[in-house]
């Protein structure tokens, strides 16, 4: 694990998970010297959601997240190709922008949902999820297992549909040796 150089392009979901817990600062440290980008379609989703969910405003204000409008011919044609599978009625455009930016610019997509991840694999787009960043934060000693457990359990059950119940992440992390023995 640990930081690898490169560009990370974030979907709305993973940023929202970190912001909701007040961990945006932690995420910034985990990102390290990698560049963190959000495409205009994610900015648009964050703006739309920020009125109802204040923590999204923090994401928009984060100076270390670079906003990029997708306007290049390759970016737009990739955007259309991903939209064909994922988008409808203005929904899911965030993740289409993330995949398009990643594909056109050789970045890693940070995304949680099943269909865009499957599509990323099919189109040789590198891909990472919220859980991956939680593990990095755990590994770097930035967050304790107690803090991460609830968020990770929720992700495992609802977003990833994995057969882990409450406390499942802690058990799994122990089995994998991800947690130092004193935790």
């Amino acid at each position, binding site marked *: *694990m640990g930081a690898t150089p490169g560009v990370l392009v974030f979907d709305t979901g993973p940023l929202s998970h970190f912001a909701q817990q007040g961990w945006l600062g932690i995420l910034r440290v985990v990102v390290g010297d990698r560049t963190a980008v959000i*495409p*205009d*379609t994610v*900015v*648009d989703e964050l703006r739309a959601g920020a009125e109802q969910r204040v923590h999204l405003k923090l994401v928009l204000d984060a100076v270390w997240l670079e906003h990029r*409008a*997708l*306007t*290049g*011919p*390759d*970016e*737009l*044609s*990739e*955007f*259309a*190709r991903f*939209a*064909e*599978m*994922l*988008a*409808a*009625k*203005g*929904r*899911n*455009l965030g993740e*289409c*922008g993330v995949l*398009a930016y990643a594909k056109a610019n050789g970045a890693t997509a940070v995304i*949680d*949902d*099943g*269909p865009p*991840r*499957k*599509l990323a694999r099919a189109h040789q787009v590198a891909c990472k*999820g*919220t*859980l*991956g960043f939680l*593990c990095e934060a755990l590994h770097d000693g930035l967050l304790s297992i107690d803090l991460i457990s609830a968020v990770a359990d929720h*992700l*495992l059950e609802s977003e*990833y*549909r*994995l*057969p*882990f119940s409450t406390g499942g992440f802690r058990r*799994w992390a122990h089995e994998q040796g991800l947690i130092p023995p004193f935790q």
Partner: protein
Amino acid sequence: MGMDAEALGRRIGEARGRAGVTQAELATEVGIDRSAIAKIESGQRRVSAVELGRTAAALQMRIEWFLDDAPHALVSRRNAQDPGSPSPRIDAMAERITREVEFVLRHDDRITPAAVQARTMPETAAGAEELAATARNLLRVPLDGPCTGLAEKVAAVGLFPFSLDLGAESADAATVLLDTGGVAIVNGGLRVGRRRLALAHELGHFLVADDYAVDWRIAETLGAEHREALFDRFARALLLPAQSLRAVWEQHTSADGDTRTAAVRIASSYRVDMATLARRLIELGLAARPDADRIRATRTNRADIVELDLVVGDELAPPALPREYERAVLRLFRSESITAARAMDLLLDTWTEDMLPTLPQRGEDQIWQYI
């Protein structure tokens, strides 16, 4: 390789024209100045992903339609219309359905429309009758008797039927030929007998491989040698085969003693409307015009249904999508190839997301995909 700003801008302008939306109206929807829309359309300004998404929503298009070439049948249809003029509703619906069906055919490997050899366009009423007999063979229906479940039967020969209520001001039906198979759209606002007649008429267009046909008022074209009139004749012959209609008409008129009861019984069992039955009786020489006019004015009522013990069918009740197509969409959703929102679009908004199957749990070993 992406599309340059000029080509994309031109396509946005064309789509705006077809949707009957002004530059100012589009600018308001997208949230930019009218001058910016003008520059986008002339290729002087690049459009962003967010703007393209909003443009698609405003013009009731899908994003990828701006970048992908339209199916050839749609292109030839557009070329025949005034450039820049708004599309009639049925054309917009035909475009949507054609593109969505093509999408599903591209991405689902189990849906395979049957390939049907194109038949020669009939030139006479006798030719239309022959084509109807050929069609019955293709549909695997006996040459006599009613032809019920028409939607399923035409789907089995490669013509996917969609029945959607397009309102009273719309055309009755349309057909678009695909590379393999075809799509028929029937205005579900019609009554059941007319819906079946419309679909039978579209099957005629499909069998002679007409690229794109829109039928405004089926069975209102006069003149036995006129092309559309021949398809009407084909449709009547398909639903009311001459030999069996002769036999049942004779049997019922002699048994019931009155033409009204005979007409109500036959229209019910053959699932046709009275106007179709009346016209068929005339063209087969089974009824004189005054009798036929009385039959045309006949309305099957509740007492008829009870006393004659009629079976009431509701084929092609809107919204109706081809079962095989719906199954393919569900397969794409289950395999997580498409999102729930995309599935709703493919199902033409005739489903709601809570109707979709619940996706199963993944295996524990898949956790590594998320790290």
